[in-house]
């Protein structure tokens, strides 16, 4: 028993558990033909949560090890400039429609989520945590904090939204007959932030680059727009 306590207290173990679980679930997902329903992120975090609950480990203890992966989100966000630059010519030609699509998408995302949740009597804390759900985690956490929601709930809802986006997008593209890589990537970035962007890279580097652009634009725009929208809807 004492050994186990000592063992789990080591941050390194949670780092190893996280990476191993992710490699295993990615392999499993590929074997199943890459279905987004069993997205490696969702399966990994479910398995890790179950494992933490079974071993009676707190999230804080887990995060001591996992923070080293979490930290890489920063440089990875900066690195999005590279594929963006590679496709800069294309971005320049479409700049105005991209800005319009991003603003319309971001407002649709926040307003429709708030209205549906409000209609179903969700608590105010939940509402304010749902509002930034289409925005990349680090921005969503900042927004939820400012509005008075729960930052860690917001970051969880952001991830679930990401998975939902990856599940719905291919079907919606088929129905609407969307074939352009740039459109597919950008739409995934607006609606499903970093997870959508990661998924868009599977369509190709250009889709990924547009996803990254969309993620950055949507995040920045939502950070300014949401406080106005929340007071307009009379929440909080």
């Amino acid at each position: 028993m004492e050994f186990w306590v000592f063992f789990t207290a080591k941050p390194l173990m949670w780092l190893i558990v996280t990476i191993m679980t992710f490699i295993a679930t990615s392999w499993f997902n590929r074997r199943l033909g890459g279905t987004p329903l069993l997205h490696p992120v969702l399966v990994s975090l479910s398995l890790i949560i179950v494992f933490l609950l079974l071993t009676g480990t707190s999230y804080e203890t887990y995060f001591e090890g996992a923070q080293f992966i979490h930290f890489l989100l920063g440089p990875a966000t900066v690195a999005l400039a590279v594929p963006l630059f590679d496709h800069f010519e294309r971005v320049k030609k479409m700049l105005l429609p991209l800005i319009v699509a991003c603003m319309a998408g971001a407002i649709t995302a926040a307003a429709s989520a708030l209205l549906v949740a409000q209609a179903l009597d969700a608590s105010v804390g939940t509402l304010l945590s749902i509002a930034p759900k289409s925005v990349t985690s680090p921005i969503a956490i900042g927004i939820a904090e400012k509005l008075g929601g729960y930052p860690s709930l917001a970051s969880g809802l952001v991830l679930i939204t990401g998975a939902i986006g990856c599940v719905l997008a291919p079907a919606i593209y088929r129905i609407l007959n969307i074939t352009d890589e740039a459109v597919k990537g950008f739409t995934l970035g607006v609606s499903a932030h970093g997870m959508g962007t990661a998924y868009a890279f599977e369509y190709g580097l250009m889709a990924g680059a547009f996803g990254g652009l969309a993620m950055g634009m949507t995040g920045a725009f939502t950070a300014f727009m949401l406080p106005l929208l929340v007071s307009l809807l009379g929440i909080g």
Partner: protein
Amino acid sequence: MPGLKLYGFGCESEYVGANVLIGFLILLIFQFAGELIVIAIGMPVPGPVVGMVLLLIGLILKGEVPECLRIPSEALLKHLALLFVPAGVGLMTHFGLLKQDWLAILLALIVSTALTIVVTALILNPSAKKLHNLNQDNS
């Protein structure tokens, strides 16, 4: 990679190992610059996003992506999905709220995500098509 010469962004070193390290350092420095700007101006935008914009401006001025920057950047982006797992596990601290509001949360997320995809794609698709036609006319 012998014989590979790399210029600019300080990655002239001959050794690929050192180059990749320099590339990673460049990413961190741009992130740091982004964080500083956010604090200085008091913007509600996260530092890495500002860092990304700064790096993009740098690359546009330079006109190309140095190999030493491309290697660590593409390696990070290839594994982007993994980086979301630690934050996602944080959901376990909110089981109470989730139990109480789960239906509202689930419906709100599904409906609004579907609407967002439809609205964004429909606005963007016509101009992408126009661009395709233009490219075909030119060639």
